[in-house]
């Protein structure tokens, strides 16, 4: 019995860790890759500076492009409206000139008939 006690005591006795053990453990923890999911992995990709810049540039280009397209559409709509107004104005002008010419001719005929 006492031999067994001695064996246990010997096996479970406190033992100081080897030199630098704690530092080595901490270093391994930091070096170990994190277990990340799909979204986290995707978001992690943006932590790269180059990709971050590329994304920012793409966003700016998209915003500028959208504004440009919208402005062009607006300009086109304004131009088409102006064109229609010009045509309407010239039709009215033409109509009135034609009518006046007709009236003058009518008077001319009337005078000749007299």
């Amino acid at each position, binding site marked *: 019995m006492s031999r067994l006690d001695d064996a246990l005591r010997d096996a479970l006795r406190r033992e100081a860790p080897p030199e630098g053990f704690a530092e080595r453990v901490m270093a391994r923890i930091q070096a170990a890759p994190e277990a990340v999911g799909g979204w986290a992995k995707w978001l992690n990709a943006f932590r790269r500076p180059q990709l971050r810049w590329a994304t920012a540039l793409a966003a700016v280009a998209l915003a500028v492009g959208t504004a440009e397209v919208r402005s062009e559409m607006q300009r086109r709509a304004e131009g088409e409206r*102006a064109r229609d*107004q010009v045509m309407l104005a010239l039709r009215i002008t033409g109509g009135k*000139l034609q009518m006046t010419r007709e009236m003058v001719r009518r008077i001319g005929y009337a005078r000749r008939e007299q």
Partner: protein
Amino acid sequence: MRIAIVMVAAVLSSAWAQEIKLPPAFDKLAAKAQETVDVTLDSNMLQLAGKFLSDKDADQAKAKQIVAGLKGITVRTFEFAKEGEYSMADMDALREQLKAPAWSRIVGVTSKTENTEIYLKQSEGSRIGGMVIINAEPKELTIVSLSGTISVDDLSALGGQFGIPKVDAPKSKGKEEE
């Protein structure tokens, strides 16, 4: 003497450069009218319109040619439900602006039913510096003002284009010619 000449020249040049302004009474007419057409295009809008006028369409191609020389177009048409909604005095403020030496009335036609006046602004050579048409009918009033240079050919093309068929000389009698 020199000062007097300079002053006269300044007054004349300002009269020549003046754009036609529609009198405020026209705003009241718009309120009374059943239907109105209001077209106001400045030189910027005319330039923009010119870019959208097609060369392939005969009317648009002619319009493009006319618009190229214009600085402004103003058209007001008022259609009233009944007669007597406007008076010729409403036009006086407009006529005041159409005086010699810059402007000359080339046509004044008065009949029982309508009254038409055409004023032209003098310019160099065969070109016209502007045109104003005042057409008054019992239930309709139309004012057209074209400012800028217009050629006589353009003016002739205006009556008989833009979807308006040319009308042959009619045989009925008119009343008065000026």
